[in-house]
């Protein structure tokens, strides 16, 4: 059996499992559709949250990012897990007690304003679509490499699968599918990591292996890696603040990711599906525990992959090039432009010969390669040095997405393990995509259609609209996957920045302050959004120089700006609060109820009160 047959087998089995679960958990009412009837046990919800949370970016890209960034890659680890602590302590139990369907529900009801609700809806939809685009690209990468089908066909298959279980089962179907997807993705991530760690260091546990000595070398793995990195001009792997971010930037990026994560609507709604606030707290713990299983292993995969990459490529001749290089070369995620000596060199300097195609078209790339060949053949007299061209386009080094998918091949692991990793990547992408599609559906069908446009809509009509919106959203997301916009990665910084600058401060103040009223909240949210979005658009798309804010000589990176947007939001909201009137009695009562544990006072049951 070769890799391809194994992959078809695993992908086919896992897809069959997802569809089976969808059929078993189909729903008939909006409560089941949006919040799974609020009957999901804490541990299962924790698993589903973990799968929802860990996207194709966590599974495929994160270890690759750490692998190329070294210490600085830790911002993603700390940012995404640290944000979860904020979410579990400051937001989740209270929003569960609030007992509605969506995040805009809370913003709209707490601040008694349709404008606030609308701003929240727009943010939720924008953040979700940004994310979905990335997931669909992940599906495309896996399909094109492992099943050797066209990316378009791959995305279409993914779309059909997600559409089926999301419309049939709504949140209930999605939740139980995500539980299954968690197991697929975590096993697929851990098995190769254990195997590689054992192979390199003789320690089975990858987290321990990373800090251990290399077999037969008598030197710590990190010492060896740092040495190789420095020899090639990349700089030490473990030393902080060497790369493009100084301490201020690392700090602000981490904080922006933390606050942004805590404000991501598709993760917050997961806590709406459990029975009560007590279960929401437990579910927060289970979720982070399950997430940590992958997040603690990713640095090990990253470090080991870096070692294999540098050791396997440098000094290899055409015949000696490892097999994984040839199979990934076809995808354009890695390529070699030789300087004529027939030996590969992968370094940080001008003599680097390893690149990636990036967003270049096939014809463009072929042209660069042809003129580079001319350049080499003529000894530099004719043609153009392709290495210089690609370096100036920022395409040095392999695409980070191949690290996780190619590491098992680098380490020469069994074919079925390699195939299983492909199924894991698909599980990660599909689970997150489905959660996001539900947020889009609930934002449009519940917040926009039912709460703003047509409050008289009946149960059946709302369910139908919800399902129809998922259908439309799947198609749009699929188009993003087939025709990926070139700016996906920049837009992701956008999603986190906006979540940090809009939702996070407003939800936290909404819960912890009785005093903050409608107008300060709207002003705060708008100033946070406008500032953050403005800075990102100006610096990324219009080449405005970075601002230093008096902290960093380097200037604040667009990824870090969410921190400042968040502070601005807090400052504006709190600064304006004393000048405007207190929230109404109804809102005071709402805050009181949200803060108290369930059944402690014979309060009105929100879900069954007249309004709903």
């Amino acid at each position, binding site marked *: 059996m070769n890799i391809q047959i194994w992959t078809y087998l695993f992908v086919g089995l896992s897809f069959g499992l997802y569809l089976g679960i969808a059929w078993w958990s189909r729903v008939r009412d909006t409560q089941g559709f949006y919040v799974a009837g609020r009957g999901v046990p804490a541990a299962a919800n924790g698993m589903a949250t973990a799968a929802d949370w860990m996207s194709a970016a966590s599974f495929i890209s994160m270890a690759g990012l*750490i692998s190329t960034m070294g*210490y600085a*890659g*830790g911002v993603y*680890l*700390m940012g995404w*897990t*640290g944000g*979860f*602590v*904020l979410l*579990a*302590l*400051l937001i989740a*139990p209270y929003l569960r007690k609030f007992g509605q369907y969506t995040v805009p529900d809370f913003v709209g009801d707490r601040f008694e304003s349709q404008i606030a609700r609308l701003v929240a809806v727009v943010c939720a939809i924008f953040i979700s679509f940004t994310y979905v685009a990335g997931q669909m690209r992940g599906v495309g990468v896996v399909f094109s490499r492992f099943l050797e089908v066209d990316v378009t066909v791959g995305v279409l298959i993914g779309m059909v699968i997600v559409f089926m279980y999301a419309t049939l089962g709504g949140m209930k179907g999605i939740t139980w599918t995500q539980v299954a997807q968690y197991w697929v993705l975590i096993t697929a991530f851990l098995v190769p990591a254990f195997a590689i760690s054992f192979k390199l260091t003789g320690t089975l546990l990858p*987290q*321990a292996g*990373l*800090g*251990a*000595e290399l077999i037969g070398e008598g030197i*710590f*793995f*990190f*010492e060896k890696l740092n040495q190789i990195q420095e020899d090639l001009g990349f700089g030490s792997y*473990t*030393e*902080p*603040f060497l790369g493009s971010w100084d*301490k201020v930037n*690392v*700090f602000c990026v*981490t*904080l922006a990711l*933390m606050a942004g994560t805590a404000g991501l609507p598709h993760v917050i709604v997961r806590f709406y599906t459990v029975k009560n*606030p*007590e279960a929401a*707290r*437990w579910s*927060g*713990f289970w979720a*982070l*525990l399950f997430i*940590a299983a992958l*997040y*603690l292993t990713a*640095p090990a995969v990253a470090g080991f992959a870096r070692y294999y990459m540098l050791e396997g490529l440098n000094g290899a001749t055409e015949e000696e090039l490892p097999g994984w290089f040839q199979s990934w070369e076809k995808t354009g995620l890695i390529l070699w432009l030789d300087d004529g000596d027939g030996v590969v060199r992968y370094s940080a300097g001008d003599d680097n010969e390893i690149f990636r195609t990036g967003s270049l078209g096939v014809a463009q790339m072929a042209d660069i390669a042809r003129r580079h060949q001319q350049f080499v053949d003529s000894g530099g007299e004719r043609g153009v040095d392709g290495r210089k061209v690609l370096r100036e386009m920022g395409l040095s080094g392999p695409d980070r997405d191949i690290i996780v998918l190619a590491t098992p091949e680098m380490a020469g692991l069994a074919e079925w393990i390699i195939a299983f990793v492909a199924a894991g990547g698909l599980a990660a992408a599909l689970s997150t995509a489905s959660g996001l599609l539900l947020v889009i559906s609930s934002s449009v069908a519940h917040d926009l259609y039912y709460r703003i446009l047509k409050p008289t809509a009946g149960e059946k009509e709302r369910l139908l609209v919800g399902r129809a919106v998922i259908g439309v959203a799947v198609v749009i997301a699929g188009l993003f996957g087939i025709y990926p916009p070139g700016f996906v990665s920049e837009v992701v910084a956008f999603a986190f920045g906006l979540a940090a600058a809009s939702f996070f401060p407003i939800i936290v103040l909404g819960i*912890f*302050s*009785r*005093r903050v009223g409608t107008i300060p909240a709207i002003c705060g949210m708008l100033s946070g959004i406008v500032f953050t979005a403005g800075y990102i658009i100006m610096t990324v798309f219009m080449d405005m120089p970075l601002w230093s804010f008096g902290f960093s000589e380097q200037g604040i990176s667009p990824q870090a700006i969410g921190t400042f947007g968040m502070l601005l939001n807090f400052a504006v909201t709190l600064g304006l609060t004393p000048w405007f009137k207190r929230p109404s009695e109804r809102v005071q009562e709402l805050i009181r109820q949200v*803060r*108290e*544990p369930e*059944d*402690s*006072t014979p309060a009105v049951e929100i879900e069954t009160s007249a309004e709903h």
Partner: protein
Amino acid sequence: MKDHSAPPASADVDPHVLYWRKNLRLMIGLLIIWAIAGLGCGVLWADFLNEWSLFDTGYPLGFWFAQQGSILIFVLLILIYAVAMNRLDRRLKQSVAERKRRKAEADA
């Protein structure tokens, strides 16, 4: 955070007010540890901590906090929070029931 309206602690304070105060205290305590572990040891003092390594392993300490230690501490924080808060919840329900019973006795 802004509960200035709360009366001074006495035997007859509304248990809900006490509950909220304890909740805030627990939360702030845990968030301080959160900030020290992640933003402090993982970022602010990372270059300084990197001069040591974790026990007998090859992990530089600052690097370890950024990529392993902070995550372990985060998981622990949420566990402590879940256990402590759920206990607070149960105590509150008990004392509310107690008050109700006493009030009913006094009325009778």
